[in-house]
C-alpha cells in the first residue's frame, strides 16, 4: 500500500474492512428538464434515472450495464453529486450525501473519485503528468513540503505501472493506455474508498484494455477499493465484476452476482442483451441462439407505461402496460428481476422479419 504510507497520519481515514458496505443508493431519481431555447419554457422532462437502488462493499465491484442512454453515466455522476439527484438517498460511509453542506461534501469527495472513458480529453494538455497527479494533493493540503508531495506522486505513478522519470512529460506524449494509468494515479492520490469508473477501457484496444483491466483488479486487491464500473461491453463486465445491475431506460431491470445474471438471466431484456454478444469462437457459430429485438429504445422523455421494456418485449401482455414490475425475486430464481413473468431463458423468436427480394 504504497500510497497510504505517504499520507500524513492525521489525514488518514480508517479503511473499511473488505465486505463492509461503502456505498448505498436508495431510490435514486434524476430528471433533466428539457427547455425550449427560444421560449425559455420547460417543454418536459427526461427521465434519465428512475428509482435506482444498489449498494457496494469495500473490495467489491458492481457493474452497471445497458445500452447507450439508459442512465448509467447519470447514475454514476449523481452518486458523486456531480449531477444533482431529483430524489432518493446516497449513503456514503453511512452519511447521506444529499443532505451534506459544501464543507461536508468536500470532505467526503476525497473518498470517492471518478475515472472517465476518454483518456484524451480528461487530462489537461498544458499540465505535466506530475502536476496532474499532484493537483488533488495540493488542493487538499496533504503535504507541507514539496519534496514529500513529489515523492508521493512518484509512488502513485509506480503504483499504476508508470516510470516516475516520465513525470515531466505532457499527456499528448503518452498512449491511450498510459493516459488511463495517469487518470487512475490521480484518482488514487487522496486514497479514496470508492472509484467510479465510467467506461474506463472502452476507448482502448484489446491488448491495452487487458493491461488496464489487470491493473484495476490488482489495485482493488491491494487497497480494498470499492468500484462502480460502468460499461457497455458485457464481456469486460463479466470478467471484472462481482455483481451486476442491468439498466433499461432509467430502471434497473435485473441484478445479482455476475454468475447469476450471466448464467441464469430471467429478464427478457438481459436475455436479449447477452444473446447479442458476439462470441469469439467460430465453433459456436451454429449453436448460438440470438434474440433479435424489435425497434429502438423509446425516448426517455416519454417512456412507455407499466414496464418500460414492453415495446420491444416478445413476452409482453396486457398487464405489462398497466403495472410496473417491481425489482423482486418472484419465483425463487435466487436474484431479483423486474419482470412479471421472469423466467429462465426459453426459446424466443429470432428475427421478427425476413427481408426478401434483394434482387429486385
Amino acid at each position: 500500500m504504497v500510497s497510504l504510507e505517504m499520507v500524513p497520519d492525521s489525514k488518514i481515514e480508517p479503511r473499511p474492512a473488505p465486505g463492509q458496505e461503502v456505498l448505498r443508493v436508495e431510490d435514486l431519481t434524476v430528471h433533466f428538464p428539457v427547455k425550449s431555447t427560444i421560449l425559455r419554457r420547460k417543454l418536459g422532462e427526461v427521465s434519465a434515472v428512475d428509482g435506482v437502488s444498489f449498494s457496494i462493499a469495500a473490495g467489491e465491484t458492481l457493474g452497471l450495464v445497458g445500452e447507450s442512454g439508459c442512465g448509467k453515466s447519470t447514475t454514476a455522476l449523481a452518486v458523486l453529486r456531480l449531477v444533482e439527484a431529483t430524489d432518493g438517498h446516497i449513503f456514503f460511509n453511512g452519511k447521506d450525501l444529499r443532505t451534506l453542506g459544501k464543507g461536508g461534501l468536500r470532505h467526503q469527495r476525497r473518498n470517492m473519485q471518478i475515472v472517465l472513458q476518454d483518456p484524451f480529453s480528461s487530462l489537461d494538455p498544458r499540465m505535466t503528468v506530475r502536476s496532474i497527479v499532484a493537483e488533488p494533493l495540493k488542493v487538499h493540503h496533504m503535504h507541507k513540503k514539496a519534496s514529500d508531495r513529489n515523492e508521493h506522486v512518484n509512488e502513485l505513478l509506480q503504483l499504476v505501472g508508470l516510470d516516475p522519470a516520465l513525470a515531466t512529460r505532457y499527456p499528448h506524449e503518452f498512449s491511450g493506455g498510459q493516459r488511463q494509468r495517469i487518470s487512475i494515479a490521480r484518482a488514487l492520490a487522496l486514497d479514496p474508498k470508492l472509484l467510479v469508473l465510467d467506461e474506463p477501457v472502452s476507448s482502448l484496444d484489446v491488448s491495452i484494455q487487458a493491461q488496464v483491466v489487470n491493473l484495476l483488479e490488482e489495485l482493488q486487491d491491494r487497497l480494498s477499493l470499492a468500484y462502480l464500473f460502468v460499461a457497455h461491453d458485457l464481456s469486460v463486465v463479466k470478467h471484472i465484476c462481482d455483481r451486476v445491475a442491468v439498466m433499461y431506460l432509467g430502471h434497473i431491470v435485473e441484478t445479482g452476482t455476475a454468475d447469476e445474471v450471466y448464467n441464469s438471466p430471467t429478464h427478457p431484456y438481459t436475455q436479449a442483451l447477452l444473446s447479442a454478444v458476439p462470441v469469439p469462437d467460430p465453433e459456436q457459430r451454429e449453436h448460438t441462439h440470438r434474440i433479435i429485438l424489435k425497434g429502438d429504445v423509446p425516448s426517455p422523455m416519454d417512456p412507455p407505461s407499466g414496464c418500460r421494456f414492453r415495446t420491444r418485449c416478445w413476452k409482453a401482455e396486457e398487464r405489462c402496460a398497466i403495472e410496473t414490475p417491481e425489482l423482486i425475486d418472484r419465483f425463487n430464481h435466487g436474484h431479483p428481476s423486474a419482470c412479471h413473468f421472469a423466467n429462465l431463458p426459453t426459446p424466443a423468436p429470432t428475427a421478427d422479419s425476413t427481408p426478401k427480394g434483394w434482387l429486385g
Partner: protein
Amino acid sequence: MAAPVKLKPADAAAAGQPLLSVRNLTTQIATETGTVQAVRGISWDIYPGEILGIVGESGSGKSVSVSSLLKLHPSPPVTISGGPITFEGQNLLELSERRFRRIRGRQIAMIFQDPMTSFNPVKTIGNQISEAIRVHNRRISRRAARARAIELLGMVGVPRPMARYKQFPHEYSGGMRQRAMIAMAMANQPKLLIADEPTTALDVTIQAQVLEFLKLAQQETDAALILITHDLGLIAELADRVLVMYAGKIVESAPVRELFRNPRHPYTVSLLESLPRIDVETEHLATIPGSPPNLVYPPPGCAFHPRCFLSHQRERCRTEIPELVDLEVRGHTSACHFSHELDSESAPQEDDDGDTSAVTNGDGGTQHANTSADSEHGQEVDA
C-alpha cells in the same frame, strides 16, 4: 479437437478466379511530423460470395488499405503505389476517374462506421437512395426508383418506410441510419461490399439487428463482403476467411476456424488471449506489453518484435522482415520467422480455455499465459 477444417461453399469458390486481387499495395500519407507508412506492401484476394474479415488494432491500416482500393483520398497527401489491383480483369490503379465512377457504388459499395457522415445531411434518405439507383441505371424512372427505395428500406427493417422515405438522416436513430446505409449500398446489387466497422458505433442489440440484415443482404445477392472490425467476436461469427493486420502489414491469414483453433503468429495468439470472454471463465487476462508502433518510424525487422513474447531477443526478429509464408494447412499463412514454434496442433493441447503453452519471454515472465501475473505493467515504449 483437431477436426479437419470444414469447407464452406464460399471456400470452394476459392478454387476459381478471385473477384478482387490486390498485389503489393503500399499507401503513404504525408503529415507534418513525417510520412506515415499506413499500408506497407500487402497482397490478398477475395473470391465471389466470400466474407473476408480484416482484423487488427486501431491504426493498423485496415481502413486505409480498403479506402486505397477505391481511391477515396486526395493525392497528395495520400500516395498509393505497388499494385496491380485487379477487379474483373482491370487494374483499378490505372483506371480514369470517369471509368472509376462507374465501379464505385455500382460494382463495389461501401458502408462506413458513421452513417451520419456518409449521408448528405440536407437531403432526405429516400432521395439519396433513389439517386444512387438512378445514377447507375438511367433507364429506370424516377417513380420506379422511388418504389424500389421504399422497398429496400422496408427490407432492412426500417419501420413505416413510406413515411421514413421523406425523412432526413438526423431524424433516423443510429441503428436505423446504418440499416438505411445497407439498403443504399445494396441498391445496385454490387459484386463487392466493403463494410468498415459497420456496427462499432452501435449498441449490441442494435448491432445484432444490423448484422442480421447485412448477412441476409449478402447471402441473397451473393456479393463478396469485406468486413473490417477490431472485434474478434464479429470475425468469429461472420467471416469465412481472416486477415490479421499489424503495423500496416498482414501478419497472418487463414480460414476462420483454423485461425481461432491454431493461431500461428504471436500477435494473433496474444490478441486472442487478452480478450475477456463471455463464454469462458478467465482468471487473468494476458497482455501485450507496450503499444502499437508509430508508423512514421516502423520498427526494423519484424514490426512486432518490441512486444513479442516469442522473439526472445533473437537477432533475426530485429533485422530481417518476415515474409508471409504458407503453412501446412491450405490457405493458412503467417509472417513470423518462428511460427513453427507455435504449432499447437502438434504440441500437447489443453482444454477449451484458450490457454495454450506458456512461453517465457526475454524478461523471464510468461507474457501470454492466462496465469501470468507480472505482465500487466507493460512498459510502453512509444512515449
